[in-house]
């Protein structure tokens, strides 16, 4: 099949391409070095952050709050409308469109600034005294607004898409209700002015999307939604712990540079713990490595628009949180502080590696998955890795990190656009063909040409083809990592750059290549190739599905062709809010002028923005070289992958994080269920023995039996994975309650066999024993344990007697001491007392009971009086006297009752 020659050819081409990559990036590094030496002058400029628009100055300040309220109000409206689906759709369309327009109207006050009383205000601030212990504050700056805008757009198209996709789903109302409330929570996270407000909305984003993921209520959908919920909760708790630490130690939760304060009150490793808690907290939503599990689990079974909403908008909130924490909270306000910058660099270095590992491993997983939504989920994780890496670069480079942050912000926008487009196109295909496995599709471009074009453009976008949007942001991110590598020599003692970051850069290129290979595979397998016959009659997607796709591809192409537009309009003003040195190399490369003035981007991504030159520009050439090497490697990966079947590799379960998580989680649950239940029982026995033993020493024998029973429980607990459940089952069977059969069959791995055992046990039919032996190995022990258990409780025996008279004999031949002493044998007087008390319908009994209460109270009072007057009484004697009196009293009651209860 494969000649040596062919393989040699492949290997040769790979080597050439790798060296080409290295060469390409090497050249760029040299170029960067040159510019660095030219422009690098350390000028510390204290930027003047423009004052915020407050409530008193302009009504605009309240607008973010109203924007958050609109989805909630319209969610209420669609609930009120009830069954009228048309009206619901109108409300949904209008409200999402209205929010998008309102977000656009925020552009002026936030980004351009408005002048009131001859003073310029930029950004809005609104504080709402909501909770008595904390105000809800809403603060909007260009970075937040940018992500809010893109979220608004994604929600608008996602909602539009859902109108026709929900013809094949149930519960339209429920889905839209939770979609709108999640929208509100998402906007709240982006507009939050302090960490408390942010946390409130962030938790909303944990539990509200549950309904979106679990919508279809199949087993796999529920599993995915549960994983999302559990990871969300755990990361939310980490975030909360971080917030508590921050608040207790600094007394402030405002999101503003406060590295000085953190460094003074939380010295040493504590500040890193704090940073780690916050990054883990937000990373759960962003899907960083080790917290990414929920995306591939939850997406494939969720309704079509969910994945677009989640990948397009929701996971950005996690990245937004990381970037607020890392690039704002841990940044020193005073630029001259070296120690604080070093802390930030350390955090940034870790974040870079989190991003790099996330992007690389996720793209590997994407390459070998055949379910298209699962594949796209892995790509979401991978692209979040790019964003996180950009954030990390910005933190690592400190005042020089403008490029990293610009790249991260830019990539957030671009990822939202092309990923939403990909999910919508895949969804459109799925709704028409009912097939998510891309290997079973093919040739569909004839049936749905517009969808095919949409996916083609989105694939170009995600692969970073020049002329499409991904190219610009990936170039910026590449610049950032190269700069980080360059800059790393400042942090080393020997003044040599960190080779690890060079490796990170190579991984970056390879990841781009993998992204290209994997997405091309998706497009070719779905739309090109030969069409399977059963898809000949597939109709085109309706317009309500195609319009959202059209909107998205229009924006993708626009940004791709004018990459500097977004950088000038909104990312530039956004950078002004962060502590970047305006005269740093990155800033020069990006803007080349002081950010306070009208911002003009000068970075040459696709062309020189001022001179409008295209090919002759060296910077553009470097960008093109880097991307073409990535595309070439990607192409070769694609060909080799198909030739050698690499796309069908399966990963051993030991290499999957999920395996270990499940082990830990189940281990914890088992620990609670097994060990702690036994412990609780043990405590029960001891305390009840002590307390009841005071009244009757005979009862002490319980201790022995309790221990015995406990032993059996432990044995059984070791034998079966979910002892708590099985125990319940046994108890139930003891009562001959056959409802328990259902439970047992549901909970244990081999229900048939276990169920047989249980039934055999309950009916004392030993014929079942043989069956059980045959069914599961080791059943004998289990059976013995259970039988022993059942004998320890006379209650079961009584039940058995009814079924099988012979059982009574068996009970008789048991050793005397193994019989359980029931309450009646131990304390007859007390049982009678109880009976008295339970038959209180008769007035005579009631009076007796009232008398008894009065009696007890009188005794207590008498003793009190005694001690108060004669202060020398020994308290122990008093207690003893009370006990004796009480016992006599109870016996008196019992005796009077005995005559009547006998018959």
């Amino acid at each position, binding site marked *: 099949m494969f000649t040596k020659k062919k393989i040699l050819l492949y290997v040769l081409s790979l080597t050439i391409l790798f060296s080409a990559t290295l060469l390409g990036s090497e050249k760029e590094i040299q170029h960067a070095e040159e510019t660095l030496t030219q422009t690098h002058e350390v000028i510390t400029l204290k930027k003047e952050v423009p004052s915020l628009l407050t409530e008193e100055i302009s009504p605009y300040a309240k607008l973010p709050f109203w924007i958050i309220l609109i989805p909630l109000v319209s969610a209420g409206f669609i609930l009120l409308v009830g069954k009228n689906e048309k009206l619901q759709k109108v409300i949904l369309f209008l409200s999402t469109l209205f929010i998008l327009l309102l977000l656009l109207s925020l552009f002026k006050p936030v980004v351009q600034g408005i002048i009131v009383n001859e003073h310029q205000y930029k950004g809005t601030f609104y504080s709402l005294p*909501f*909770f*008595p*212990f904390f105000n809800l504050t809403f603060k909007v700056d260009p970075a937040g607004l940018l992500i809010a805008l893109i979220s608004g757009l994604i929600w608008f198209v996602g909602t539009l898409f859902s109108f026709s996709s929900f013809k094949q789903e149930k519960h339209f109302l429920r889905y839209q209700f939770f979609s709108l409330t999640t929208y509100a929570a998402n906007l709240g996270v982006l507009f939050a002015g302090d960490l408390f407000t942010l*946390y*409130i909305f962030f*938790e*909303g984003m944990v*539990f509200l999307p549950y309904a979106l993921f*679990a919508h*279809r*209520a*199949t087993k796999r*959908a*529920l599993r995915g*939604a*549960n994983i999302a919920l559990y990871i969300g*909760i755990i990361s939310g*708790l980490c975030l*909360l*712990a971080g917030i*508590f630490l921050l608040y*207790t130690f600094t007394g402030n939760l405002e999101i503003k540079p406060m590295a000085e304060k953190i460094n003074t009150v939380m010295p040493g490793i504590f500040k890193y713990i704090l940073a780690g808690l916050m990054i883990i907290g937000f990373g759960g939503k962003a899907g960083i490595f080790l917290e990414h599990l929920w995306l591939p689990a939850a997406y494939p079974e969720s309704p079509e628009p969910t994945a677009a909403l989640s990948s397009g908008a929701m996971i950005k909130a996690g990245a937004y949180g990381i970037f607020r924490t890392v690039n704002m909270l841990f940044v020193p306000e005073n630029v001259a502080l070296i120690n604080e910058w070093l802390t930030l660099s350390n955090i940034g270095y870790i974040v870079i590696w989190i991003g790099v590992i996330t992007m690389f491993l996720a793209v590997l997983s994407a390459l070998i998955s055949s379910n298209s939504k699962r594949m796209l989920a892995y790509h979401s994780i991978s692209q979040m890795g790019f964003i996180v890496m950009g954030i990390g670069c910005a933190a690592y480079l400190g005042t020089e990190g403008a490029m990293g942050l610009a790249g991260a912000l830019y990539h957030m926008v671009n990822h939202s656009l092309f990923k939403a487009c990909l999910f919508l196109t895949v969804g459109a295909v799925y709704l028409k063909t009912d097939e998510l496995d891309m290997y079973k599709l093919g040739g569909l471009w004839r049936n749905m040409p517009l969808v095919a074009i949409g996916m083609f453009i989105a694939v170009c976008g995600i692969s970073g083809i020049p002329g499409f949007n991904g190219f610009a942001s990936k170039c910026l991110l590449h610049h950032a990592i190269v700069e980080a590598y360059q800059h790393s020599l400042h942090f080393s003692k020997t003044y040599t750059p960190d080779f690890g970051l060079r490796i990170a850069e190579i991984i970056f290129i390879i990841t781009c290549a993998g992204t290209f290979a994997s997405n091309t595979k998706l497009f070719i397998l779905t739309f090109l190739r030969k069409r399977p016959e059963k898809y000949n009659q597939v109709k085109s997607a309706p317009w309500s599905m195609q319009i959202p796709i059209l909107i998205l591809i229009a924006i993708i192409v626009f940004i791709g062709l004018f990459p500097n537009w977004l950088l000038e309009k909104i990312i530039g003003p956004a950078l002004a809010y962060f502590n970047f040195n305006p005269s740093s190399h990155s800033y020069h490369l990006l803007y080349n002028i002081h950010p306070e003035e009208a911002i003009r981007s000068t970075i040459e991504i696709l062309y020189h923005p001022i001179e409008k030159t295209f090919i002759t520009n060296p910077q553009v050439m470097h960008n093109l070289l880097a991307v073409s090497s990535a595309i070439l490697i990607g192409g070769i990966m694609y060909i080799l992958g198909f030739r050698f079947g690499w796309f069908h590799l399966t990963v051993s379960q030991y290499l999957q994080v999920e395996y270990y998580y499940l082990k830990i989680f189940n281990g914890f649950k088992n620990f*609670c*269920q097994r060990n702690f239940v036994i412990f*609780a029982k043990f*405590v029960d026995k001891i*305390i*009840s023995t002590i307390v*009841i033993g005071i*009244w009757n020493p005979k009862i002490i024998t319980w201790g022995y039996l309790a221990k015995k029973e406990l032993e059996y429980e432990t044995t059984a607990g070791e034998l079966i994975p979910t002892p*708590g*459940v099985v125990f*319940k089952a046994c108890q139930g069977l003891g009562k001959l309650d056959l*409802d328990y059969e*259902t*439970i047992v*069959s*549901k909970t244990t791995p081999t*229900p*048939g066999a276990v169920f047989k055992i249980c039934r055999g046990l309950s009916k004392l039919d030993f014929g079942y024993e043989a069956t059980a032996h045959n069914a599961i190995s080791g059943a004998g022990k289990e059976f013995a344990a259970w039988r022993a258990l059942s004998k320890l409780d006379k209650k079961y025996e009584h039940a058995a007697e009814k079924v099988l008279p012979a059982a009574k004999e068996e009970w008789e031949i048991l050793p005397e001491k193994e019989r359980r002493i029931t309450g009646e044998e131990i304390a007859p007087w*007390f049982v009678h007392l109880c009976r008295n*008390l*339970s038959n*209180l*319908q008769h007035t005579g009994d*009631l009076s007796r009971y009232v008398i008894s*209460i009065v009696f*007890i*109270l009188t005794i*207590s009072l008498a003793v*009190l*009086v005694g001690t*108060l007057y004669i*202060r020398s009484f020994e*308290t122990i004697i*008093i*207690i003893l006297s*009370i*006990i004796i009196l009480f016992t006599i009293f109870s016996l008196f009651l019992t005796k009077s009752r005995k005559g009547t209860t006998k018959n």
Partner: protein
Amino acid sequence: METISYLPVIAVFFPLLAVFIVPVVEKMRKGTGNIFTALTCVVVFFAVLFMYPQISAGVKIICPVWQTGLGADFSLRVDELGFLAGLIGIILWTLSSIYAIEYMRKEHAQTRYNIFSLLSLFGLMGTFFTGNLLSLYICFEVLSIASYVLVIHEESPEAMSAGLLYLFMGIAGGLILLFSIIATYVITGTGELSLIGIGLKGEPLLPFIFWGFILGFGVKAGIFPVHIWLPSAHPIAPSPASALLSGVMIKAGAYGIIRTIYSIGGLEALLPGRVIMVGGLLILALISIFLGSAVAIAQMEIKRMLAYSSISQIGYVVLGAALMSPLGLTGGVVHIFNHAIIKGGLFLCAGAFIHQTGLRMIEDLKGIGKRMPITALCFTLGALSMIGFPPFNGFVSKWYLALGALEVSKTGSYGPLVGMICLGMLLLSSFMNLIYYGPVVYGAWFGEEEEKTSVATPEVSTAEYHNPGEKVKKDDPNLVMLIPMILLALGTVILGIFPHLPLELVRAFSHTFFPR
């Protein structure tokens, strides 16, 4: 500042009066006893509510009732803590009585239930509104013994054995409490609860007296080693009574523990020996929190699960008190209020499930959201609040408790490590709450469409099952039962967003012990 008012007298003794009227009313016309009980609760509720202006103005209400001539009178005194606990107690009692009108309609021995419900109410209000240890003890014992009858209401063997344990524990705890009370009177000659530290400082017997109080009150509260009666007694009672037992009666114990630490012992006296006294209590609280949640995970019966959850939650309250920091105390007391609302609502919802469908097992409650949407919604809100999601009221408690836990190193009561451990335990418990409340909630809404693969019912006619045209029968109970549940569920949200009412009073209360 103190003022004399007769409102507490009405609140405490009106139920006692009503005890004698209920049988008469029931005899005159069948079925009116339940309504009369509810009306009594409403009267008491207003009596408590009218105290609010004075209490919120910082005035303590006192009222000497009966001069015993024993050196200690039976006197009433209401401060912020007592008022808050009494208010939530009577709110829950009123709602539960209204709920019981419908729930108990077909039960046996309704008169007995009503009589002992009112008697317990007398004990509870007395516990919260009394001014000294003698009167506190009397009311506390009445509460213990009267609520026994509520536990054994079903009269099944399980109920009897659970009640037996409850009675034994209650009496044993009461006796230990009596020992401590007597010792306090003997040593200091007073038992006034208005004091900040009753004067036991430096007393060699103090640890014994302290642990006597803690065990005595702890039995009722259900903290770790003496909680054993709780998981069997709470679920076995009829649901309205379970709501009361888990919602407010265990709070009587928690109230006592707070009084013990802050009024009777006093921080000054307790701080030197904190390792063997309050520190030990802190450890017990942490064990309660973990053990309650851990065992609740293994439960299959919904009411039993809720009972174990109560052990965990009462651990929060005790933890807040034992932290000896202002924010911790605030969190603990606020959690008395919040947990009563949440757990009361959850028990009423569980009762509605049982009453309407007869299903007790969590496994069987799958898809209940389709059949009983309103009840399931109320349950969901309660469960979310229990997990501690903002903006539900459970989050408010969690917030204060966690901040209080981190505050301990500032106030000097414990080191920072203790604070971190407490914080970790609170967050872990939140997660464990999710593990056991989660399956109920998402089972209720999303569980029904799962394919059934059970052996016992091998072929559920699938065609019928997937028939979309089929209308699901709504099983929600009638309004009499629904309104209390809805009010409590709304309460979790409203008190989460506007927790001012409890918080302001609690702050005033904690300022008396932690002056700025």
